[in-house]
């Protein structure tokens, strides 16, 4: 296992499409729910414990070798909003392209064949981590960090928020992220032993509802 591979995969500039998505921040900003660094922190904390936890567990389970098709179905079941499912699959497809170029292997090629229109992004993230020789905890960390760094970066663009404040939010959430990563990896282990029903099913109903509204806006800066 190479520790540097984790940096490659976790780099915000890894070319896998994340820059065009706000993780729900655009809708929350428009609704007046994020107006500054304080609200951003609350919003990110909410994501961390819901969508983030689920994504982390899915990614870790994929590293442990749980069948990607079962994981993808489990991700669907945990994502009520069709708009968010579509976004997750698009991002999964983009990530798979980048991962196959970075860590070419038969397993990733096979997954591309199964999912020509993309699998849920956290599942692909786990498979990418596996191809890179990383472990379940690495994959969970990547998924969890993305679940909060995406909205933070987007809010810098949307509100012209001071980038130091946004980074401060991420730094303050770090200890909490450690704890959620541990639960995600624990759940992934149980899923590997007993099936995908053991994966967490936390969700933020408002995130799902607002994602549906956002997808219907005629003009928006971010794809989701």
């Amino acid at each position, binding site marked *: 296992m190479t520790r540097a591979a984790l940096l490659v995969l976790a780099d915000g500039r890894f070319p896998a499409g994340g*820059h*065009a998505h706000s993780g729900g921040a655009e809708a929350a900003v428009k609704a007046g729910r994020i107006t500054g660094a304080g609200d951003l922190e609350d919003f990110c904390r909410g994501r961390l414990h819901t969508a983030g936890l689920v994504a982390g567990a899915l990614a870790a389970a994929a590293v442990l070798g749980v069948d990607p098709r079962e994981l993808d179905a489990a991700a669907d079941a945990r994502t009520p909003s069709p708009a968010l499912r579509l976004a997750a699959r698009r991002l999964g497809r*983009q990530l798979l*392209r980048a991962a*196959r*170029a970075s860590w070419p292997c038969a397993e990733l090629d096979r997954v591309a064949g199964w999912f020509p229109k993309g699998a849920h992004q956290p599942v692909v993230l786990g498979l990418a981590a596996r191809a890179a020789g990383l472990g379940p905890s690495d994959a969970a960390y990547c998924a969890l960090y993305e679940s909060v760094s995406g909205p933070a970066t987007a809010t810098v663009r949307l509100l012209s928020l001071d980038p130091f404040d946004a980074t401060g939010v991420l730094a303050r959430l770090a200890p909490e992220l450690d704890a959620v990563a541990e639960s995600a990896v624990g759940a992934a282990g149980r899923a590997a032993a007993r099936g995908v029903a053991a994966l967490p099913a936390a969700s933020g109903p408002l995130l799902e509802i607002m994602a549906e509204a956002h997808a219907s806006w*005629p003009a*928006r800066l*971010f794809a989701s």
Partner: protein
Amino acid sequence: MHLDHLPHGPAAVSADAHRPDGTRRALRIGLGGPVGSGKTATVAALCRELRDELSLAVVTNDIYTREDAEFLLREAVLPPERITAVETGACPHTAIRDDISANLEAVEDLEETVGPLDLILVESGGDNLTATFSKGLVDAQIFVIDVAGGDDIPRKGGPGVTTADLLVVNKTDLAPYVGSDLARMAADAKTQRAELPVVLQSLRGGSGVADVAAWVRERLAAWTA
């Protein structure tokens, strides 16, 4: 990387010249340049000029979702299924240069759904003078500036002006009204670009469009040769 050994395997991961089924993919030409310089209007003019002889499609990269795509749809320059809008998260230059994954998916989906295609035009939403296309996304690029943006733009240079395969100086019809010196713009462009071509174009008067179309035909001939 090359996946030529997988003729019917999963989609290619890079800018390979061949599609997974072994056929040659469409030539991809990018159009970039500052906001409002006439990129979408040039795409529309090229479509009108070439659509009877070539199988065409367009990908737009908008700042606010689908503006450019909707203009092209309204103008009916191509059937709607041949126009795709990529969302860029407020950063067209990221989507055409640093992270091209969404655009690659768009061009591949177009080839799959309405192909076989000869040519795909990829427009970048108006950005700055440094916004150029990745070689992983397009085979050649056109940089469109206009005379109303200031006649010192060719002199200032920047990667778009100096390195694009074709520089179009658009809206020459406006030169007398905005006090732009066309001869100076052409001379500065020549200095910056050495042998690379420059076309002066007016989409109002219609001059230059044929030259741009001829340049595209030449690129296509080289691509399919």
